[in-house]
């Protein structure tokens, strides 16, 4: 007699549920010391639903198969010197920003989900969080392995962990994740599981990875899509978390709404770096940031928030401001990095004519009016040997830590400044969104390790730009400055000259 086969749902229930128990030799509140202080009320942890129902045997099987495929591509890529086959040497700069700015966040997510995977009281969400912790470790490790091949040839990649902990603009993504890690377990789940993974991650991965595919970077597109296949599980965890919290108790609604508002805005600010990558750094472009925003936030997020309306959840505060800013943000960010190219760990350039025309077409409301003239002026200055560098250290927003370069909603010619007083000090912000976040938790955000303040306080290697670059382990003249004249460009041109020669 062979045993009857269990259905997926029953099998998962038997194999995972019921593993946990109420401790009696130690009080539950001591075993789970962190899941009360945020004020979230959970009546019944067993109401948690696990839509994917992966047992470890299935997890290992599928993930091993994905990894075999991925590493086969990486090996082939290295053997075939795929690094020389991308669309253009400029493309590598997207990888520099990715490895120094995004991969370390995957690592933080790995440790953060281990935290919630241990400290949420319910077994269901804990297992899901643990799997995500393991997946996030996968992501950082596969990213390092993929980009390792580029590091052998190109500058700006070699010191990624050191830079992530120090470099001024990398404090933007780092502080974002530190913020989530410093929060309680429920806020972490909403911040990263819901707001980042569900609402915003498509904006990071799908267009960017399609961009990698379009630019001939088969190794990056392979890890990207392969990672993204885990992401669909993570997104499901994110939406289950928010539904679960809202279904458990009506008192959770205002807390969750506040987190949704906060983390939408935090995530939106970090994604400005992606906006810039898409519009300026991909030599062959898939879609504009504005188009990506329309597909993945306006449309995708619209469906989501319509669905969540039944719980009383509203579209995040300032979503309208973010949508309006989609017309500006990539241009304003690129302007910052262009001006501070001497302190950036990747190369910059002014768009060529074809690229300018593409931007004009994609941003008919704003580009010709506000940005094209400035780019043409700066390009002209370059020609005349008067390339513009901004040598003054910028003022940073106390919350998102981006230099104060964003404009007022509805008025793209006026820089937006906000400020607030706390314990006798004045704090500065780039937006109402960031100011609201500070005002809600001033003790937390007053602590920010602001790179510019730290430089002024003498904590970053010294007072001059070369001192600071040295402290960043940023190789002056190789890692920084314009692509034109860089060792990367020289190498790229040599390869292509030789390839042309070899082809006869």
């Amino acid at each position, binding site marked *: *007699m*062979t*045993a*009857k086969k*269990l259905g997926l749902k029953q099998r998962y229930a*038997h*194999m995972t549920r*019921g*593993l946990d128990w109420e*401790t009696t*030799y*130690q009080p539950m509140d001591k*075993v789970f*010391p*962190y899941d009360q202080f945020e004020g979230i009320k959970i009546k019944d942890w067993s109401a948690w639903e696990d839509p994917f129902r992966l*047992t*470890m*045997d299935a997890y*290992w*099987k599928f*993930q*091993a*198969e994905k*990894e075999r495929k991925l*590493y086969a591509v990486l090996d082939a890529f290295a053997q075939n*010197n795929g690094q*020389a086959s991308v669309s253009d040497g400029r493309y590598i700069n997207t990888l520099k920003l990715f490895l120094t700015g995004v991969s370390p966040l995957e*690592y933080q997510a790995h*440790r*953060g989900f*281990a935290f919630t*995977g*241990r400290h949420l009281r319910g077994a269901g969400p804990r*297992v899901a969080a*643990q799997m995500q*912790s393991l997946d996030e*470790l*996968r992501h950082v*490790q596969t990213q*390092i392995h993929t980009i*390792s091949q580029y*590091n*052998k*040839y190109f500058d700006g990649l*070699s*010191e990624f*962990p*050191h830079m992530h*902990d120090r470099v001024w603009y990398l404090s933007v993504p*780092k*502080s974002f994740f530190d*913020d989530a890690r*410093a*929060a*309680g377990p429920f806020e972490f789940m909403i911040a990263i599981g819901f707001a980042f993974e569900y609402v915003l991650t498509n904006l990071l991965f799908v267009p960017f990875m399609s961009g990698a595919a379009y630019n001939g970077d088969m190794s990056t597109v392979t890890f990207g899509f392969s990672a993204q296949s885990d992401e669909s599980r993570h997104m499901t965890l994110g939406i289950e978390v928010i539904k679960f919290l809202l279904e458990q108790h009506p008192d959770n609604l205002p807390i969750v709404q506040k987190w949704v508002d906060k983390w939408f805005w935090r995530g939106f600010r970090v994604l400005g770096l992606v906006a810039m990558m898409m519009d300026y750094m991909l030599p062959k472009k898939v879609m504009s940031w504005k188009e990506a925003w329309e597909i993945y936030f306006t449309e995708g997020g619209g469906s989501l928030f319509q669905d969540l309306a039944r719980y009383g959840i509203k579209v995040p505060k300032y979503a309208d401001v973010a949508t309006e800013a989609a017309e500006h943000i990539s241009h304003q960010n690129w302007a910052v990095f262009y001006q501070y190219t001497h302190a950036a760990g990747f190369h910059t350039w002014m768009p060529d004519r074809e690229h300018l025309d593409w931007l004009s077409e994609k941003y008919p409301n704003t580009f010709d009016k506000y940005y094209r003239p400035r780019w043409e002026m700066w390009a002209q200055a370059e020609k005349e040997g008067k390339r513009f560098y901004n040598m003054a250290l910028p003022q940073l927003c106390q919350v998102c830590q981006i230099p104060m370069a964003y404009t007022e909603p509805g008025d793209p010619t006026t820089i937006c400044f906000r400020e607030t007083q706390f314990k006798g000090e004045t704090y500065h912000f780039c937006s109402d969104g960031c100011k609201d976040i500070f005002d809600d938790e001033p003790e*937390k955000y007053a*602590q920010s*390790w602001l790179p510019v303040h730290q430089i002024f306080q003498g904590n970053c290697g010294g007072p001059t730009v070369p001192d600071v670059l040295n402290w960043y*382990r940023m190789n002056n003249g190789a890692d920084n400055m314009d692509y034109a004249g860089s060792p990367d460009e020289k190498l790229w041109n040599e390869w292509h000259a030789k390839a042309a020669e*070899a082809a006869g």
Partner: protein
Amino acid sequence: MSVQIKTIEYEPKRQTFGHVARRLGADKPASRYLEATLDVQPTVNFHYKPQWEPEFWHFDARKTAVVMEDWYKPLDPRQFYYATYNIARANMNQSVERSFAFADERGLIAKLSDDARSQIEHGLLPLRHLHWGANMNMTEICQRGYGTAVTAPCIFSAMDHLGMAQIVSRIGLALDGQTGVSLDMAKETWLNNPAWQGVRKLIEDSFVERDWFQLFVAQTLAVNGVILDLVYKHADAAWQEAGVTVAMLTEFMTDWRAEESRWSDSVIKTVAAESPENKALVSQWAKLWIDRAVEAAKPLSASLLGDNGAVAEAAGEATRKRALSLGLAL
């Protein structure tokens, strides 16, 4: 006719990342394990103190009393990174699938005597809860620990324990005709049967241990060495005629234990060897938790094997020997 393939020389500018080269002492090619592990955890310039533990940063070497000059010394001899870990487990799991299929086809479980069944229900199935407790501990060490070299294998270990809890659950489902009745009974046994209360108290006490390296010693040396080895290694006689079947269906655990202890032992050895202070602390923790594990295991051993706790003592002795071989002084 000769075929001439024209190639271009792509001369690497560097062989590996800067932080990896500094640890290797030279810029030379590094393994995927090293590139995926070394210095991956952030170390400085954090922004906000955690609301849940403001006395520390979220990555903070002070969360254990042992001190390492460099937490990247205790490397994993298995050189696991995510891909190699998963591929290793997927391979091990293929044997699990074959064993369960074989046991099913041959009716190995169906024809067990009531005695053997009740022994498995009583002595083996409650282990799924101990694995779950171990999963909590290894997850905790992953989140609280310091340095990717130690913490990354801890999430692997946590998921291994979840996987093993699920293998034990499958044995239960095979016994009870896929109804889950045996799993409910096993939970009752875990919660209330006197034979298991020492073990349950031991693991619950470990849940509240705040020093993550002490927890590492408690779990990987004491709990794994005494309790898991007692049941998986030294209790064959308890399963009566099902001894071979149980051995076959728990082969994963045997292989896993041999493999994981190579890593966990080497971590303990490296940390203890760092300084006399570390050695004293780790030795003290090892003694404390092995002694407690032996006391906890005695009633279980007595109930399973009718040995008055002798096999638990023997498992404890073997674990003490192991601890000595790692350079500890008990």
